[in-house]
Each structure stands twice: as structure tokens, then as C-alpha cells.
């Protein structure tokens, strides 16, 4: 369970988050939508403790991570998968080593078991043939798949995805959205996705939230959003 209360963040004169309230239930997929620069990625970075809010609480499974020191946050993050917009794969490691990295860091598995787990996870994201490739040799979609494999290889129960479809063509966007949804449902992951891809978000999300002026203007199911009479929501979804 993830619970966000009264979250505020300013950068110099600009208020980016102005009292975000959000609750994500276990196993739920919530997509945060909003225009570019609306604070979606900033919210996600707060959820994993990469940024400290000016005010507010963020509870991850009952722990208020806002109060934690960096050493304790590192422990919390071991149980969270984070998919970056551009993948953020280590470019000096092969795909195999990138996916093996969290296992080598946080488990006592021997190399044979790590290899088995890496190959299973790569097969899950459809990259079983690319394990010896370097990130520079991958297409945009393949990079996101490899990064997704790295994010879930520890069987994390929480998954955060920052703009997973940005820079992809419509077909690849659909594929990666379906893949994230399928993995989240299979592994029963509590998933928060920051996105501006309305079409795919409406398809895969259990609930959607729309950020407007630093606040969640509305959080609800796809049907509720479609039926909303709020002028901003109507305009946003008519785009």
C-alpha cells in the first residue's frame, strides 16, 4: 500500500507539487497523467525517496519514507523496481549483466542461479536473444524491456514507471504498456506509472489520476474519467 498525504514541493519560485493526495492499494495499477512539466516525474521521484518534499508524508507499506535517512532509503528501494524514461541501463555492462546487477548486489545466489533467473526474466520481457548485447546496440523499445527486466528481477512488489512509452511508436507503446500491465498483474505488483500516453493508460490502468497545477485534479477508474464533467478533465482527454 502506498499513501501520499499533503505533498508539497517547490523549485525556487515554482510550486510543482501543491498538496498531492493519493492512495494506491496492493496490486493496483495507477497511472498519473498530466501535461509535460506538470510534476508527474517529480511525484514518482518523491515516491522512491530520490527527492525530499517540502512538506507531506509518503507511506510505503506503513513506513513514512520522508523521514528516512539515505542508508535506510537504500534498504527500502531494494523492494521497489523503478523503470526510467530512457531505461538508464549501465552502458558499460551487457544486458545480461544489467539484469544480473540487482541479484549480485542483494542476494547470495551463485552465478548459475543468477544466470537462470536472468534468462527467465529476459524471456518474460521477450529479450532472451539479446542477453549478450550492449545497451548501445538496442532499439528504444528493447532498452525499455531490458530496463523493465532489471526493475522486476528481484520480484519487487512495487513498481514505478516513468514515461514508459515516451519516444516509442504507437505499436511499441502498446506492447510495452501491455507488458508492464501483464507483469504487474502476474507478479501482483503495486504499480504507479507516470505517463502522458492517454490511450494506453486508459487501457491498462485500474485507476488514473490527472495532475493539474500541482494537485491531482481527479483520481478514478477509466469510466469515471470519461464521464467526468470537469472542464479540465474533458479537455485533457479530448486531446
Amino acid at each position, binding site marked *: 500500500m502506498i499513501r501520499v498525504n499533503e505533498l508539497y514541493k517547490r523549485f525556487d519560485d515554482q510550486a510543482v507539487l501543491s498538496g498531492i493526495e493519493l492512495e494506491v492499494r496492493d496490486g493496483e495499477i495507477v497511472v498519473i497523467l498530466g501535461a509535460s512539466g506538470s510534476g508527474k516525474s517529480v511525484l514518482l521521484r518523491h515516491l522512491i525517496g530520490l527527492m525530499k518534499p517540502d512538506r507531506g508524508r509518503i507511506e510505503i507499506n506503513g513506513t513514512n519514507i520522508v523521514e528516512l535517512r539515505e542508508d535506510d532509503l*537504500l534498504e527500502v528501494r*531494494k523492494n521497489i523496481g*523503478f523503470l*526510467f524514461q*530512457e531505461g*538508464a541501463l*549501465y*552502458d558499460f555492462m551487457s544486458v545480461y549483466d544489467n539484469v544480473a546487477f*540487482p541479484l549480485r*548486489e542483494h542476494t547470495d545466489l551463485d552465478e548459475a542461479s543468477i544466470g537462470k533467473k536472468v534468462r527467465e526474466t529476459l524471456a518474460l520481457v521477450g529479450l532472451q536473444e539479446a542477453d549478450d548485447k550492449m545497451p548501445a546496440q538496442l532499439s528504444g523499445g528493447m532498452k525499455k524491456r531490458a530496463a523493465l527486466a532489471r526493475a522486476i528481477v528481484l520480484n519487487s512488489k512495487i513498481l514505478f514507471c516513468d514515461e514508459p512509452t515516451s519516444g516509442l511508436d504507437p505499436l511499441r507503446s502498446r506492447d510495452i504498456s501491455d507488458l508492464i500491465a501483464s507483469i504487474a498483474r502476474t507478479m501482483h505488483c503495486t504499480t504507479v506509472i507516470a505517463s502522458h500516453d492517454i490511450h494506453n493508460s486508459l487501457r491498462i490502468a485500474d485507476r488514473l489520476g490527472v495532475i493539474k497545477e500541482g494537485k491531482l485534479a481527479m483520481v478514478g477508474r477509466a469510466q469515471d474519467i470519461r464521464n467526468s464533467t470537469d472542464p479540465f478533465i474533458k479537455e485533457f482527454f479530448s486531446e
Partner: protein
Amino acid sequence: MKALRQIFQEIRDFVYGAGNAVFFLGEVLKFILRGRIRWSDVFGQMYEQGVQSLFIIALTSFASGAVLALQGAVMLNRFGAKEYVAQLVALSLVRELSPVFSSFIFSGKAGARMTAELGTMNVNDQIVATRTMGVDPIQFLIVPRMLACFLVLPILIVFSELVGMWGGFCVGVYDAGIPAAFYYNQTLDAIGYVDFFSGFIKTVFFGLIIGWICCYQGYVTRGGSLGVGKYTTKAVAFSYILVVISNTVLTKIILTFWK
């Protein structure tokens, strides 16, 4: 008024940056003192940094030694003291030239690479990604690079001194006509324990300075590919400045207490 405000802003940024750099060094030392060192990564980095700089250091050191011998032979010949060329070459290289010049070259080659590498990782979110995976990027990425720099530079400088002396030997023997055995013995006689270690101690400091500056600049790089270029240039420039300044201070200290 605007210019004054800008100067004030520059000073504030510099003080803020310097404070952050010191804090960063403290973080690195904390990991090292706690023994949280990835030795396989350190050796990997030592190999990369060492091999990368070896050829260019050999080339410049040989040339420096040779030029010193060429100039020394001309000057000393005027006083009828050509046989002291070996001493001149050996002492100049061991006490000053090799530590300083090789540090410059190392900073421009391995140091710049470190900054560019870390900077690119930074702008591509790889450093942040390390944190999201529950791993401290300082321990994983910075400690091995800084430690490797600290360990490999003294080795490279001893190598540079040997190659430089060989350059001087070639000129002294084949150009100035000094007998090889005489030149060799003069070189050995010239370098005392004090001479060698006064240069060597400096290299330890230079290794620390270059590793610190270059890793820090890479770690704080912002602004995409333009930022990587800007911070890399800054890292090399700061390394040069700090090497030159610390060399002056260290030389004075060494000469005061240990002549």
C-alpha cells in the same frame, strides 16, 4: 549593480561548490575507512587508467629527459661540466618534472575520461538508477575510480622517471658523447633517498587531487551533452591548477623539513 550581483552569485556558487566537493570527499573516505571497497572494480579501473596513460606518459617522459639532456649538455659544456648532465636529468625528473608533467597528462587523459564517463552516466540517469536499485553510487562508481587513481598515479610516475632518465641517457651517450657506464653511475649516485621520496610523496597528493576533482565534476554534471563537455573541461582545468598550487606548497614544506 547587476554586475555586482553577478559577482556575488559567482562567489556564492564557488563557495557552495567547494563545500559540496569537500563533503563529497568525506563521503568517499567514509566508505574507504569502513572497508567497503570493491577491489575487483578498483583493479579494473587501475588497469584502464594505467594502460590508457602509459604510452603517452612514456612518450612525453622520454622526450622530456632527452630535451633536458640536450639543453643541459649545451649549458654545462660552457662551464666544462658536461659530465654532470646525468645528475641534472635525474634530479630534475625525480624531484619535479615527472611528478608534475605526468600528473598533467594523467589528468588530461584518465581524469577527463573519468569525468566524461560519470557525467554521461549522470545525465542518462544511470547514477540515480543505482540509488533506485538500493546501491550507493559513491561506493559502486566513485570509490573504485578514486582509489585506482590514487594507487596507479605513483606507479605511472615512477615509470615516467625511468623512461625520462632513459631519454636523457640516449642523448647523453649518443649525442653528447658521455660514456654509457659513467652516465649510468652518475645517475645512480645523483638520486638519493630524499630526492626520490620528495617527488613520490607529491604524486600521492596529486593522485588524490585528480581523482577527487575529476570524480566530483562527473558526479555533479548537469545539462546533457553540453554539460558533459563543460564539466570535463572544468575538471581538467581545476586539476591542473590544484596540482600546480599544491606542488608549490609541498615543495616548500619538503625543502623546509627535508633537504
